[in-house]
């Protein structure tokens, strides 16, 4: 080995130590693993109040249940509040396994940027975190209610959102998607919400529909049922039910359709200075439940049911879009974004005035429903005398 080689070797080895960024030898038990955090704002002194849920291992035996603990602190900024927690926990909070951020309504109303900045800038939190907006007075109270599937509330909220695939009543938005929607033109972001309900007399957290944003500020809420139609337009339906009511006929009844597959296309039309949007959905469903002996399985009945369901879907989608246009004035469906991608020339003209165009936008909804099956029965159950 010659001298220059040894010198090079020493330089490389020493620089590996100097240029290693910010990771370090850290034993697991020296960390406080954060599973989620609730962010509130104190009205009086305008300070952030953070409630972090930390996985508690004091009382845990190997193979036992994991409990959670809450650490509360406040600070002028989010990071300040987080650092202040060290005063209480004696361990550094570790954010890489956090799944849930809950914002109180007034934090969301004042602007979500400080929260996003912390998640995006800090090395530990992941961009796959779920952000919820609390519909209750504070965000912190959601972390201290009864839990059903796991003692760690934040993970339970994460699981609730995962299980939403066959419910399709809340938008599944992770931080990176939210940030994309926020920074893109012609689209406004949405977030799922949480509220408290009673389960066997005990208060517990449940999913509560959609929080609609305009720019980075909360503009309003959509109900769980309305969110489904929002998801239809956003082409994010993975399952869920369509409940078709027949109130007019001689015997009012209701048929439940289960959604298997859905594909939505948004087509902007521009002719004679008149902009309109066509929404075409194609949905595969099966008859999942009916409370009548009326035969919807044969060809005639199927066509009738199909027509009813299509009408129901079209009417509701139109209603939700109207609500967004008039009540929130927020393009949560991304119509502007679709125009920008499909007709960049047109977007150059109208992009600047999109804020004033959107509330007046003409929408045509065309639903196309295919009834694929009727479960395990070929004929409706007959009721004899």
């Amino acid at each position, binding site marked *: 080995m010659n001298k220059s080689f040894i010198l090079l070797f020493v330089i490389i080895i020493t620089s*590996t130590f100097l240029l290693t960024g910010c990771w370090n*030898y850290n034993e697991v038990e020296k960390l406080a693993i954060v599973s989620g955090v609730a962010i509130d704002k104190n009205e009086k002194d305008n300070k952030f109040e953070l409630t972090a849920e930390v996985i508690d291992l004091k009382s845990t035996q*190997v193979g036992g249940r994991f409990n959670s603990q809450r650490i509360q602190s406040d600070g002028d900024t989010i990071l300040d509040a987080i650092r202040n927690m060290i005063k209480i926990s004696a361990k550094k909070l570790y954010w890489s396994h956090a799944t849930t951020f809950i914002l109180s309504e007034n934090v969301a109303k004042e602007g979500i940027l400080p929260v996003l900045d912390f998640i995006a800038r800090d090395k530990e939190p992941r961009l796959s975190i779920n952000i919820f907006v609390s519909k209750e007075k504070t965000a912190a109270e959601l972390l201290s209610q009864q839990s059903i599937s796991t003692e760690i509330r934040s993970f339970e909220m994460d699981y609730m959102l995962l299980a939403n695939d066959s419910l399709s009543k809340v938008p599944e938005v992770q931080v990176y998607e939210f940030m994309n929607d926020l920074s893109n033109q012609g689209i406004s972001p949405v977030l799922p919400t949480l509220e408290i309900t009673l389960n066997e007399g005990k208060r517990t957290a449940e999913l509560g529909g959609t929080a609609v944003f305009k720019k980075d500020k909360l503009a309003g809420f959509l109900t769980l049922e309305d969110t489904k139609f929002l998801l239809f337009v956003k082409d994010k339906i993975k399952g869920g039910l369509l409940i078709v009511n027949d109130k007019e006929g001689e015997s009012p009844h209701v048929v439940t359709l289960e959604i298997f597959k859905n594909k939505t296309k948004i087509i902007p039309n521009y002719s004679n200075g008149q902009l309109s949007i066509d929404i075409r959905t194609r949905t595969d469903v099966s008859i999942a439940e009916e409370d009548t002996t009326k035969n919807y399985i044969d060809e005639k009945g199927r066509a009738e049911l199909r027509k009813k369901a299509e009408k129901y879907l079209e009417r509701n989608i139109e209603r939700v879009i109207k609500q967004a246009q008039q009540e929130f004035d927020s393009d949560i469906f991304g119509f502007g974004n679709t125009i920008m991608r499909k007709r960049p020339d047109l977007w150059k003209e109208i992009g600047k005035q999109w804020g004033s165009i959107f509330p007046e936008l003409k929408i045509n909804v065309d639903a196309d429903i295919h009834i694929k099956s009727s479960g395990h029965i070929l004929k409706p159950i007959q009721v004899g005398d």
Partner: protein
Amino acid sequence: MSKFKEYSLSKSLDSNIEMIKKIFNNNDDTLIIRSFQNQHNNSLKCCIFFIEGMVNNEIINENIILPIVETSIPSIKSNFIEYLQYQVIVSNNLQKTDSIDQLIEAVISGNTILFAENSLEAIIIDTKGWQSRAIEEPIVERVLRGPREGFTECIMVNLALIRRKLRTSDLKFEFTTLGERTNTKACICYIEGLANEKILKELHKRLESISIDGVLDVNYINELVSDSPLSPFETTGSTERPDIIAAKLLEGRIALVLDGTPVVMTVPYLFIEYFQSNEDYYLNYYFASIGRVLRIFGFIASISIPAVYLSLVAFHQEMIPTPLIMSIYAARQGVPFPTAIELIVLLITFEILREAGTRMPSYIGQALSIVGALVLGSSAVEARLVSAPIVIVVGLSGITGLMIPKIKSVSVTMRFIFLFLSSLLGLYGYIFGMSALLIHLFSIRSFGVPYMSNLTSLHLQELKDTTIRSPWWYMKDRPGSLSKNLRRTSRGQRQ
């Protein structure tokens, strides 16, 4: 290289006897000196020398002493020794010489020398016959299916075992002697027309340059001739099985058989040969391929598992799935030592247990495994001295390391080096070590053949016997860069 220049044979039998006695020690009781004379002619005096224990006594009694004593000799006085050679002594292998060196060498290698009165020459009679081990299956290379014979310590028996598998006159044996004091007989075997002459020449050259006192096992030679003497990887192969040697010779490799050891060396030796087992070729190729993939995976796992575990747990907690880190977290509650110390201590303990078990009589072995598994493992976890995942990590690493006994030296050293690197730098250190290992592997050669040659080839025929063992009907060519005749003669019906 005559060592006995000052000595020479004389016509007097007595002075010859004195000379031999002097060359050996006077008190050497293993040297047997037996003088006798013909019963019809007292002037016909003879004397034989041999070494007790190295000769077949029956041959000496029946075929040397008895004929000479009983023969009714006509009075030919001039070349009596020639008469003995051609008409009296019954032996399939004998030689007349006047070189003292040859005579001494003959005696110490188990032959008998015969002096006769009034002769300036002596006769060497082949009487070798010492106790040797029977041919049995080598303990360290057992197979479920396949030939069960193994080499013994006797070179001639070993060569016969090879010859019995390769009945071709192309199989060449070249003898040489190694070791200045042990004078160990060695034999280079190869198949003419298959073996690469350049490699053969290189082996000859390296063997000639050896200067060593004693050669007791092929590893003496291996360390003197191998290409990268400092590398933990071996660049010469070794086996105790004739079937493996026959297969390697058929691939164009060259074998070195050494007297006194059942281990035979082969060159060149490539990295993939660590993972090839003779059983691969005797079993169904699907099963063999699975076994081989497992062995390669086992090697990588064995050197990586402790380092990767340490990196993840101590540096990159974000890479561990949340439920897993929670159970590791719970398991580490109350453990006083850092993970790195736990791992190093437990790995050393494992090596101690393994080393203790290797040379232990089998009836104590059971106690050892109980001590190892129960006392050290479970009690340490129960006493919270180590965390449970560490025991699993060390156990896995140890077991996968034992999958290929031959590569043990590499896996043990690399395991500790990688662990050390990742305790400093986390995954970065591990990858740093892994790159260095790969660079090293790709830089070394075995007798001019790149160590990784057939693993990195772009030709399908080169890869057919590496990570998977292709069926015999597909292996049409020999591994390249070893043999000059590439075509294997496996022309089956699926040609």
